[in-house]
C-alpha cells in the first residue's frame, strides 16, 4: 500500500470518526438543550409555586391570629380579675 492510500484511509477514518463523534455530541447537545429548556420550565414552575405558596402562607394571617389570641388572653385575664373582685 502506498503511503498516500494509508493516509487517505486514515483521513477517512478520522473523518468518519469526526462525523460520528460530531453527530453524537450534536445529539447530546440537542438533548441537553432540550433538557435545559425542560428544567428551566420546571424551575420557573417551581418558583411560581413558591410564590403561590408564599402568597397562601401570607393569606393564612397567622400574625393576625396570634394578635387575636393575645388579645383574647388579655381579655380573659381581665375578666378573671373582674370575676374575683365581684
Amino acid at each position, binding site marked *: 500500500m502506498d503511503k498516500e492510500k494509508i493516509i487517505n484511509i486514515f483521513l477517512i477514518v478520522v473523518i468518519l470518526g469526526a462525523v460520528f463523534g460530531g453527530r453524537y455530541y450534536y445529539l447530546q447537545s440537542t438533548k441537553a438543550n432540550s433538557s435545559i429548556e425542560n428544567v428551566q420550565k*420546571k424551575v420557573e414552575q417551581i418558583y411560581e409555586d413558591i410564590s403561590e405558596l408564599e402568597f397562601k402562607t401570607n393569606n393564612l394571617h397567622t400574625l393576625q391570629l396570634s394578635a387575636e389570641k393575645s388579645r383574647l388572653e388579655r381579655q380573659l385575664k381581665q375578666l378573671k380579675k373582674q370575676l374575683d373582685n365581684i
Partner: protein
Amino acid sequence: MGALLKLVAVLTILWGGWMYFKNSSSETELRKVCNEFKVARGEMEEAQTSYDAEVKKRDALTMEISVLQEQKQQLEEDIKTKNKEKGERAAQDLRNRLSEKDAREAKMAEEKAAREAKMEEERAAREAERQERLAQEEAERKAKWEAQRESKDLEYKIERANKTLQLRLECRADRPDGVQDLGRIDGLKRRWSSNVRACMKAANNGNEKQLKSATKALESIADALNRPNGQNAECLSDAAEAIEAAKVILKAKKRLKELNQGR
C-alpha cells in the same frame, strides 16, 4: 484528492470539535440549570414546609382562639350571674335594712308617743295641781277675806254692844214704889251699874262664869227694882238688853279668838 480529504478531515474535525465544545457547554449549562432546579426544589420544599407549619399554626391558633372565646363567653356569663346575684343580695339587704329601719322608726314613734302622752299627763297633772293650788289660794284668800270681814263685823258688834252696855250702866229706875224707900232704889241702882260693869268686863274678858253670875245678879236687880208694882218695867228690858249685849260681846270675842287662832 488527498488535499480534499485533508480539508474534509480538518473540517469534520473542526465540526466535531465544535460539537464537542457545544455539547460541553450545553452539559455545563444543563448542570447549572440542574443545580438551579435543585435549589429551587429545596426552596419549594422549604416553602412547602413553612406553609404546612403555618397551616398547622393557623389551625392550632384557630382552635385556641375558639377555646379562648368559649372561655371568655363562660366568664362573661359567670360575671353576669355573679353581678345579678350581688344585685339581688344588695336589694335583699336594702329591703331588710328598710324593714329594720321601719321597725325602728315605728318603735321610736311609739316611744315618742308614749313620752308625749306621759308629758301630757304630767302637764295635765301639774295644771290640775296648779288649778287646785290656785283654787286653794283663792279659797284661803276668800276665807281670809271672810274672816277679816267677820272680824270687822264682830268688832263692830262688840263696839255696838259695849256702847249699849255703856248706855245701860246708868239705871233708869227712878220711881220709887210706895213701900220701898229711895235708899233701896239707890242701892239697887249702884248694884245695877257695878253689875253692868261686871257684865262688860266678863264679856270683854271672855269669862263665861263671871258673866253668868253677873247677868243673874242683874236680872235679880231688875226684878227687885220692878217689885212690887212693876213700876220700873223698863229696867227689865234694859237688863235684858244689857245681858243680850254682854252675851253678844262674849260670843263675838270667842269667835274673834277662833278666827285669830285660825290665821
